[in-house]
């Protein structure tokens, strides 16, 4: 089938609605194959004279399968031209399929798979039990002062204990476990290139670990030159520091929410009491906002309800940072704010320039935090899809 591939690309660039319109206009017949890092199997759409006639995923066929493909926002496509002799399982017309498919995404009936930002150097896959595995980019050995070996089950850091050592995984996999009153919950797994200990380690000397990390099988870690990172950190602007701390704070809170979802101890809100939705449209796109007074809640919408991801306070930062891609507001989460609420703006261009100047290891560490945030958010949304107590 690959021999006839006439068109390929990324759905993050050309979404499925646009792609189907394009293939429809040219009256093409053939097979559209979709591949995503977030699913084990590929999806297939069979097109006859520009109209989808059948869709297939993991042995299931038909219109419902096709509808779910509109949620594949971060996937690759390949169209191979060939004669299609297929039983028609889809009767709707092309535009009806597209408009209805997108409507279901907007209505939250179709779950989005993968985040829209595909530019990250870190990739995440899932293990057999569906727990995401976060990998990191290539390790810069200049920043490694020592190597540490751990055996299966050994704890590397312990939740609630003090410590600010930083490691990067050279070989093997570790599990990030949040200890809860109901028992431990594995939030995600980390593999080669990912960091153990993050921005929080730089914040204060007495950093408290917010999760336990233990080895899964044999693990080799590189100890990061803490003084070198600290020296770099001390030179960055207060604005960038604030952005990083706020990112770290989000990750800690989202991790707690994720663990609570596991124990079904999560509240879904019909409305966000005493708060109002915050609109970014009044603020320039090249700025992010620092909270001066009041508080903000970042929430995701599930059908008619909201789930609180984290609560932010003065000095925290809201808005989209394109080069970090946290998959939260304004596109993938809503912001609710207290009244009164005041913000000041931080220039994104200045911030990006400063970020670009950082060492690769420092950047990798930041990207790791934002990837963890988006993967953990994705995981908790996946878990919520199963019934939760309201």
């Amino acid at each position, binding site marked *: 089938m690959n021999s006839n591939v006439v068109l390929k690309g990324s759905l993050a660039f050309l*979404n499925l*609605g646009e792609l189907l319109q394009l293939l429809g206009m040219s009256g093409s017949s053939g097979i559209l194959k979709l591949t995503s890092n977030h699913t084990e199997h590929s999806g297939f759409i069979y097109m006859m004279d520009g109209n989808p006639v059948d869709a297939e995923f993991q042995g299931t066929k038909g219109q419902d399968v096709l509808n779910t493909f509109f949620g594949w926002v971060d996937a690759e496509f390949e169209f191979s031209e060939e004669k299609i002799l297929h039983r028609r399982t889809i009767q709707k*017309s092309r535009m*009806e399929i597209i*408009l209805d498919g997108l*409507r279901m*995404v907007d*209505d939250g009936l179709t779950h989005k798979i993968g985040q829209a930002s595909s530019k990250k150097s870190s990739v995440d896959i899932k293990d057999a039990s569906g727990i995401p595995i976060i990998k990191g980019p290539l390790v810069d050995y200049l920043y490694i002062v020592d190597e540490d070996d751990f055996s299966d089950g050994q704890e590397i850091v312990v939740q609630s204990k003090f410590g600010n050592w930083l490691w990067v995984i050279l070989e093997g996999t570790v599990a990030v476990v949040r200890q809860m009153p109901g028992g431990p919950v594995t939030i995600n797994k980390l593999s080669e290139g990912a960091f153990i200990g993050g921005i929080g380690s730089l914040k204060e000397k007495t950093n408290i670990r917010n999760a336990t990390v233990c080895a899964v099988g044999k693990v080799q870690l590189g100890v990061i030159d803490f003084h070198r990172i600290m020296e770099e950190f001390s030179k960055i602007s207060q604005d960038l520091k604030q952005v990083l701390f706020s990112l770290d704070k989000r990750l800690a809170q989202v991790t707690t929410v994720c663990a609570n979802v596991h124990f079904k101890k999560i509240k879904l809100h019909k409305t966000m009491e005493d708060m109002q939705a915050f609109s970014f449209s009044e603020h320039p796109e090249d700025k992010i906002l620092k909270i001066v007074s009041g508080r903000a809640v970042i929430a995701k919408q599930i059908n008619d309800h909201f789930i609180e991801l984290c609560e932010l306070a003065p000095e925290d930062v809201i808005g989209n940072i394109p080069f970090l891609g946290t998959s939260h507001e304004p596109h993938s989460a809503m912001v609710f704010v207290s009244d009164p609420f005041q913000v000041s703006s931080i220039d994104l261009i200045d911030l990006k320039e400063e970020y670009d100047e950082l060492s690769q290891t420092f950047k990798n560490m930041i990207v790791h935090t934002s990837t963890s945030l988006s993967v953990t958010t994705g995981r908790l949304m996946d878990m919520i899809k199963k019934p939760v107590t309201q």
Partner: protein
Amino acid sequence: MAVINLKNRQIECKLVYYGPGRSGKTTNLEYIHKAFSKRVTGKMISIDTEGDRTLFFDFLPLGLGKIKGCDIKVQLYTVPGQVKYKATRQLVLKGVDGIVFVADSLAVRREKNMLSLKDLHENLLKMGLSIRKIPLVLQYNKRDLEKKGLPVMPVEKMELELNRQLKVPSFPASALSGEGVGNTLTQALKLTLQSLQNEFKWAQ
């Protein structure tokens, strides 16, 4: 940005009916679909979106000539009003060639009209389009409700509040009875095709 379909030698352009929820966008399109059925190709697609329906069908305008020997096909759409229909709205507005803004004449909907027009302005900006440059026609719908004793804003007032800066053609209408629907559509098509003609000339 119209699409040239070389296979059918057709130029496909997109005319979108925009406006606040329940202002009569779908009623406009339903009337067009019924009254001009000979020019409609394919069936009307109707998607139930909360608070409104999203409609779509293809339309062949007659008597408006050809561009470079190609027939012209117009895709008519309504856009879902609710904020949450982001993906649908983006697809509908992508590559839009002309817009009919359907405003609600009911006095209580005054603010909704303004917000929706502002929203259109922002959504167009996101796609690098300007509300001042895109072919645009305003329609002040539901004029008939005045006869039923409901408080309706005078056309002059709506003109002042919505069209003072834009200065685009505007039409009073009662989409339910079809009054003003045809005028609105004809003017919108005329402006859209004129703009396409200019675009193609420029490209020559």
